[in-house]
């Protein structure tokens, strides 16, 4: 019995519009859809980046007793657009004796990894752009391309800060992928599928979000995921690669204009992607809040999935910003100690606990 939520049939309607109403052949219909979806993804990527950067500025300002940008546009809303324009017209320079090829490729690798993972996010029921049966697996694989970009940027810049930063970035990202993956596996154990749409589908219904369904192990997994995800997104207190007070700007010290812009974009979108995945896997993705009371649930079901998804994601984003703007940065050995001494063992325990819960039917479900 599959429940159908509001707006979930929109892609099908559009598909049939092309095929049936306009009478296009399979090739043309698929082509138009691909181009359109590609444009939509990039547009959403850019828009979200602007929103996120603006949000970061305001949120961080409010944590710091400031009011943030106020001058460009009402309440400073056009500030980021002004910044983007500035960045576009900046001179792009090359560094002497740098490895030109790697230097040029690096920002693209970072942005490709970021857009790639971004495309996996389930916006609403049936609104998945990429939805493989090994979705989670592929997601972690694609996200690790970004490390290569960071490493290449640092190495190719012919700058000592950048090299140190690249080493730090690589060792940190590779370490934290471990617990990130383990947390995702615990979710896979619970839902029994690696397909992202399947994982969200399993969380529809009253109290079916994974952190409710999987209770203790799932909540722990969610927390570990947030910490590891923060580290994956290279954000404070784990922004060692950037470490502006030690390595000026780390691996992107030598980039200007849009080269720097790509790193900057990717950083914010990675924050969104991490929060999005956390939402998808643990907070029910686009699934509305259902508490088992029919009247309440049906009202909630009328709110489109994309609103739920964005709402939950931004809550997680806020949470991560709150952490970012409260804590000082760790040192490289401490960051590795945290991962290998605390988070890794903890995520292994979580998996064991989750397996026990699932196999003995100790999960929290209402309609079975």
């Amino acid at each position, binding site marked *: 019995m599959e429940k159908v939520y509001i707006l979930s049939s929109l892609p099908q309607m559009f598909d049939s519009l092309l095929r049936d109403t306009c009478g296009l052949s399979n090739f043309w219909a698929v082509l138009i859809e691909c181009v359109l979806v590609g444009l939509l993804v990039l547009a959403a990527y850019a828009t979200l980046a602007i929103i996120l950067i603006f949000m970061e500025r305001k949120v961080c300002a409010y*944590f710091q007793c400031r009011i943030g940008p106020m001058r460009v546009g009402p309440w400073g809303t056009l500030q980021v657009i002004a910044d983007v324009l500035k960045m576009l017209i900046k001179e792009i320079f090359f560094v002497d004796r740098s490895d030109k090829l790697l230097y040029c490729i690096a920002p693209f690798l970072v942005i490709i990894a970021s857009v790639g993972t971004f495309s996996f996010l389930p916006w609403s029921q049936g609104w998945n752009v990429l939805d493989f049966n090994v979705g989670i697996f592929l997601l972690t694989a694609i996200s690790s391309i970004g490390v290569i970009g960071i490493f290449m940027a640092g190495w190719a810049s012919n700058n*000592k800060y950048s090299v140190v930063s690249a080493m730090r970035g690589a060792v940190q990202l590779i370490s934290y992928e471990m617990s990130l993956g383990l947390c995702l596996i615990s979710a896979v154990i619970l839902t029994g599928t690696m397909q992202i749409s399947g994982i969200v589908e399993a969380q529809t219904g009253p109290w079916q979000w994974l952190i409710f369904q999987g209770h203790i192990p799932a909540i722990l997994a969610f927390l570990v995921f947030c910490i590891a995800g923060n580290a994956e997104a290279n954000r404070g207190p784990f922004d060692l690669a950037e470490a502006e007070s030690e390595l000026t700007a780390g691996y992107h010290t030598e980039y200007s204009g849009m080269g720097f812009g790509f790193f900057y974009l990717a950083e914010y979108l990675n924050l969104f992607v991490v929060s999005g995945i956390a939402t998808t896997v643990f907070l029910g993705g686009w699934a509305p809040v259902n508490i088992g009371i029919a009247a309440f649930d049906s009202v909630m079901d009328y709110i489109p999935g994309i609103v739920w998804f964005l709402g939950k994601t931004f809550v997680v984003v806020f949470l991560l910003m709150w952490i970012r703007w409260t804590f*000082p940065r760790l040192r490289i050995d401490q960051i590795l100690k945290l991962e290998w001494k605390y988070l890794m063992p903890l995520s292994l325990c979580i998996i064991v606990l989750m397996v026990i819960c699932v196999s003995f039917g100790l999960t929290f479900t209402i309609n079975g």
Partner: protein
Amino acid sequence: MKLEYTVFSFDTFKEEMTKLRDAKHFDYLVTIIGEDFGSEEGLGCIYILENTETHERISVKQMARQIGNDYVIPSVYYIWRAADLMEREVFDFFGIKFLGHPDMRRLFLRNDFVGYPLRKDYDMSPEHNQFPMTDEPETDWTSEWNLNDLGELVETKHRLFGPDDYVVNFGPNHPSTHGVLRLQTVVNDETIEHVYPHLGYIHRGMEKMMEAMTYPQTLALTDRLNYLCAMHHRHALVGVIEEAMGVELSDRIHYIRTIMDELQRIDNHLLFLGTCAQDLSALTAFLYCMRDREHVLNVMEETTGGRLIQNYYRIGGLQADIDPHFVENVKALCKYLRPMIQEYLDVFGDNVITHQRLEGVGYMNLADSINYALTGPAGRAAGWHNDVRKNHPYDLYDKVEWKEITGTGCDSMTRYMIHINEMYQSLNIIEQLIDNIPEGEFYIKQKPIIKVPEGQWWFSVEGGAGEFGVYLDSRGDKSPYRVKMRPMGLTLTGAFDKMLRGEKIADLIATGASIDFVIPDLDR
């Protein structure tokens, strides 16, 4: 204190100095003052030493021996390690070569600078002092000078950087060097092997400038040293001139100066707590400190008219009487600040990450702290009772009740906590005085042209980051013959190499943050 020199002969100088340290416990080298005593006497140095048990101070004068065109004095580098940068400074300005000093390079000026500018015969004409348009030549080598058996000067070359060393320059333009300090750091992966500080990127030659200025004019420069301790700097210079002239100040002046010094200390410590957090990337904690520092500055500005450059003390008193609302404002400020200090601890100081980052980092034990002359909170963190306010009280510090804060941790975390506790002490001092400011003159009228009687004086105050002292040599003119300032940060920077060997790059930043140096102060 008026200086009464002890003089040793050139050949026994080193033994006598060693005896002073070992037998008489003079183990704190306050400063070395190079001076050109005039064409008859020649070049020489004055060493100011302190006995760390009795806090007695003595001064030793040693004239340089001329060998050909060179002037030499035996180095005290191996007796007091603090002499490292001090002797390099004297070499830089006077060209006195210190025999046996292993790293005799220029300190503030460029490697290719010609001449020794603080000698009295230095050509000050603009044609001779053109701004160089070329890059400074860099060298991997340094020199050690010694006398051989024939009494000739021989040079030994030492290599600073090997061909395989990975050298990272922290600074001169770097977010965490609090100005323009350049630390040439040899690293192995993330581990530091050596730190070589390069100074002089904001060197303004203040001591030379003062020789051409009248006494009131010299005051205008001191606020531009460590701009967070403007009051302390000027207090030291005003203090030495007043002591030399024998000016008697009214009680009101003493009260106001003590309160202002402590307000300035709070201002300095607030900025320290903030930048310490910022260097560890806790920008939020930084802004909380800056927010509250704003209130301190506002209170001071109402009276002094300045925020960084206070311009408040003058020879014979104060620039202006306190603002009519000063007393109530200061009381409100004290009431506001006390709970806020707990907030800095909550958001940053007690945080487990901060403890992890600072504990055991930049370790410097008591013996080393004294040997390297780590004054101020950095030295007190190792349990060294070095507070000038206790040891050589000036103004009202011997009349108010307050505790000298010392610690035993010897590390950066202890230094941070000492700053926190000193703020409470400063508030205590202010609260004791603020209600009792006596009526009286705020300025004792001086002659229009101020002349200081002949002699040499030394006066030091406790600045925010350590002892700040001023040496004044007067020949009875309206301008000083020689002024030498003991900056707070010079010895702190000199200790970097010792503190940081074997630690991580991030620890360099953390130690720098906890040690509280400000470059305009140590460059002068």
